[in-house]
């Protein structure tokens, strides 16, 4: 069902976990499937120094979270804001049509985390 890149990120998800003293946290629940993804960010000098995630979600959600953290880490806030679900899905080499919304989870959670950081700042 999933391509090898997705399966790799599913088997060995990068950056799973929490950041205790995170600067921002975003959680998104997906209505259509009931899954949840949470992203933690650590921002320093406008750079996303650390990005971690946790998910209660399907294979695509796990892989999307993993890919998202890899994409976002080390990016500027502006660059991070430009990451969309398509960026994630493309970086994963594509997701099955029914699983497109799973990459939304990840991108949306990141954006929420950035908002959170913005308000707290």
């Amino acid at each position: 069902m999933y391509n090898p890149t997705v399966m790799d990120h599913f088997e060995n998800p990068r950056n799973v976990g929490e950041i205790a003293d995170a600067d921002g946290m975003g959680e998104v629940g997906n209505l259509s499937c009931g899954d949840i993804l949470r992203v933690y960010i650590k921002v320093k000098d406008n750079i996303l120094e650390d990005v971690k995630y946790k998910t209660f979600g399907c294979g695509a959600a796990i892989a999307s979270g993993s890919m998202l953290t890899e994409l976002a880490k080390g990016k500027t806030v502006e660059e991070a804001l430009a990451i969309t679900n398509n960026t994630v899905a493309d970086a994963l080499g594509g997701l099955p049509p029914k699983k497109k919304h799973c990459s939304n989870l990840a991108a949306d959670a990141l954006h929420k985390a950035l908002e959170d950081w913005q308000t707290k700042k």
Partner: protein
Amino acid sequence: MKKVYMDHSATTPLHPEVIDLMKFAMEHVYGNPSSLYSLGQEAKKYVDEARQKVADLIGAGFDEIYFTGGGTESDNLAIQGAVYGNEKKGNHIITSAVEHPAVLDCCRNLEKKGYELTILPVDQYGMVDPEEVNKAIKKNTVLISVMHGNNENGTIQPVQEISKIAKKQGIFFHTDCVQTVGKIPVHVDDLGADLLTISSHKIYGPKGVGLLYKRKGVRVQPLIYGGGQERRIRSGTENTLGIIGFGKAAEIAARDLETENRRVKVLRDKLIKGVLEKIPQSYLNGHKEKRLPHNAHFSFAYVEGESLLLSLDMKGIAVSTGSACSSTSLQASHVLIACGQSQELVHGSIRFTLGRDNTEEDVDYVLSVLPGVVERFRSFSPLGGE
């Protein structure tokens, strides 16, 4: 890598004896059973032999068996057929919230077309209360359809009691026995069924063939019109090869029913015991005693079923999550929701269904692998554990 197939409620491999017969039939039985010459009549003989075998399996008459293209078609033929065929009798259907989509979606579609539909609730085990059936009956009720055994949580319904109620009121009773036949005794008179569905591929026969049992005298309108095969109830050239394999599978199912299911039940019980002991916050779904002998269905808090399924697959274990027959859908299991389970718990449900090929080693292997996998996903999860 060790391979453990524990999704026998989704489908089963062909039984070796079925394969042998089908290999023979592929080479030698190629006439059209409707053809009058000997080659055609020979094919008809094989089809009739299979018909007798499936009839014997469920205590039905030879002439009460109608071969179809599978369990889904049989359910649709039973329901649409009985409803359209008895419009003068009424336009109200009663079914349960835990039916297979082949029944439920078929009924919902009839509702869209203007028929009345009552979907009965179930208790926490997924069990229908016959008293609820009684209460739901109206003057215009024409059909009650309640499955024999559930394909997800394995709960066995009080079909006998329900059929008695139906009979008393002169209402047709259909029961989907796709999951029970070959697992527990299925006898059309004991169950009091007017219409009954069976699918071949759940009993080690080929996919794409099933049957509708229709009691003599019950009117059913065809879904499919044409050459008039299956005594005008289901037109289309007979799937001879599939039917022949189905017949053999039925013969074996009848022969091995008791011994095989006693064996499988022991393994299944060991699996349930082991899982509940080893994995905290794991729950057995479905009824404890009134359940199919090969079914072990769990919900694990804080984990999502698909990732569990994929991880187990990587370790050679094939199981299913949610509604297995349509696991490409994202919807959470309507069965567990009907049982009152929370969305999140439903999401972490996994079904193990054992079969002929499973051994005690398989169970031990699952018990050695599963706890770690669940634990790992829990560590990924933003839910619980905090």
